[in-house]
């Protein structure tokens, strides 16, 4: 009996979370699209016009993959963390804990929903980017794969943050204190080899570097680190997050008294 997956629970959580997203669709879509447009205007057009091309790609186009990553990562984390934090906060988590559903099913439901929303935002931003710059996508399938994996892995991370957080401040602090620096120092707006030597080495410990690099490669066939390392990093990151979640549900940490 325990071996039989409760797929309906996954579906129920997924539908529920997607409906929540649809109710706030303006908020969900408008704000990332607006802020990315501003980035394009400021960095791409205003400042970018004074910056040289990076390896033959105009600066405006160069930052597109990084900008998409920036939004997608923040959105994945905030969607997934809020998704699980909210029932914890209002107490309706009792239902998940008393349902015949495993940690795998509950996590899958929340993470898939958060990843779907982030993915949609990523695509919308990509489309917006076409309005501002000439884009080329050399490897569209790889592009989609990297986008998908990024959405999934950072939704997993967001899910952990949501379980860990005991108040709204913590919920917002993590993306701010941890994720923002990782993203901004992750080669979002520059190529890692533009950094001074020491920082290049430090950057190699930043998982975002590998994601942005792989993602940018799918656009312009240029990368800071090799494709293999990018893939390895993203799978490693996903694996670690999954293991942490497994441990959380096993021990009931922050969920079960």
């Amino acid at each position, binding site marked *: 009996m*325990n071996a039989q997956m409760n797929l309906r*629970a996954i579906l129920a959580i997924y539908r529920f979370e997607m409906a929540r997203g649809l109710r706030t669709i303006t908020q969900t879509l408008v704000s990332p699209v607006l802020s990315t447009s501003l980035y394009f205007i400021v960095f791409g057009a205003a400042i970018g016009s004074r910056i040289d091309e990076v390896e033959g790609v105009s600066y405006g186009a160069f930052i597109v993959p990084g900008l998409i990553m920036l939004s997608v990562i923040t959105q994945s984390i905030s969607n997934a963390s809020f998704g699980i934090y909210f029932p914890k906060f209002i107490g309706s*988590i009792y239902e998940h804990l*008393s*349902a015949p*559903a495993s940690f795998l099913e509950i996590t899958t439901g929340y993470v898939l929903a958060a990843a779907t929303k982030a993915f949609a935002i990523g695509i919308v931003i990509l489309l917006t980017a076409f309005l501002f710059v000439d884009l080329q996508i050399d490897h569209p399938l790889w592009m989609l794969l990297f986008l998908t994996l990024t959405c999934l892995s950072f939704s997993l991370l967001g899910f952990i943050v949501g379980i860990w957080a005991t108040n709204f401040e913590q919920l917002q602090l993590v993306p701010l204190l941890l994720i923002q620096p990782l993203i901004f120092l992750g080669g979002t707006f520059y190529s890692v080899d533009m950094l001074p030597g020491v920082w290049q080495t430090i950057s190699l410990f930043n998982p975002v570097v590998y994601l942005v690099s792989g993602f940018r490669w799918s656009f312009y066939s240029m990368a800071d680190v090799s494709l293999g390392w990018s893939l390895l990093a993203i799978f490693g990151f996903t694996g670690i997050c999954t293991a942490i979640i497994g441990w959380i549900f096993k021990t009931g940490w922050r969920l079960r*008294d």
Partner: protein
Amino acid sequence: MADIVRVEGLSKSYKGGFQALKHVDLTIREGEILALLGPNGAGKTTLISCICGITSISAGRVLVAGHDNVTEYRAARSLIGLVPQEINLEPFETVMATVRYSRGLFGKKDNDAYIDEVLRQLSLYDKRDTQVRALSGGMKRRVLIAKALSHEPQILFLDEPTAGVDVSLRKEMWQTVAELQKRGVTIILTTHYIEEAEAMADRIGIISDGQIRLVREKQALMHELGRKVLRIELAQPLTEVPAGLDTYELSLAKDGAELVYTYDVQSDGTGITRLLTALAERGVKVRDIRTEQSSLEDIFVDLVEAEGQA
């Protein structure tokens, strides 16, 4: 009746070391209404949480229809519906969406017709498309019940279903519970209202300080330990109990407008006839009489007090 839930040697210590349950043994019979009666902090919610899988168990085990609720949690949990003590509802969801969600979580196929029926039964059908936050407190509690029933459970736990609910709603709730029982659902409810346990339960368990003090058939319990009260409404108020009636346990109530006679149900002869005759002889005019079952209240108070002294 077969046992549907068996709690064996269940202990629960919270982080920090507080032991909320101390080696609890309890069997719940299929189809019954069992009331767990106990003061605040007795461990009622903890016991329910352990059975339903919300709280981890420190020692002992729980079998639900023979399934261990830890190792075979899917089989065990799918039989149980839980109505929690607190109103923990997503405020922005509609009634229908939130009930449908519960059904899905429990792995049941969508069945809006069934949910509609549940909502109708709980007088919520009109509100099915209303957001939860717009409902009254009583309705919210019924939404919790609808969620618990959404997956057609065989066992329903109601944790203080009428706490903070006004009298008419409380009566309504009792009726709902009775109807559920008729449909074959086993019901366990917790309460610290004695009258509620008396009104609804087939069996009553008394819990205090993390221990089950006793579990009895309600009737047996009352018979075993019960006393009754006869309230005699007087035509003219008295200032004191008439002389010469010392053999009766009498007191005055309602500013002397009522004479209260407490007697033992088990003793031979209640003494009522003799008392009334004696009153008539003393010229006391009786307007009305009625009896009251205050038994469980006494038992309850006795137990809690006895424990306090121990």
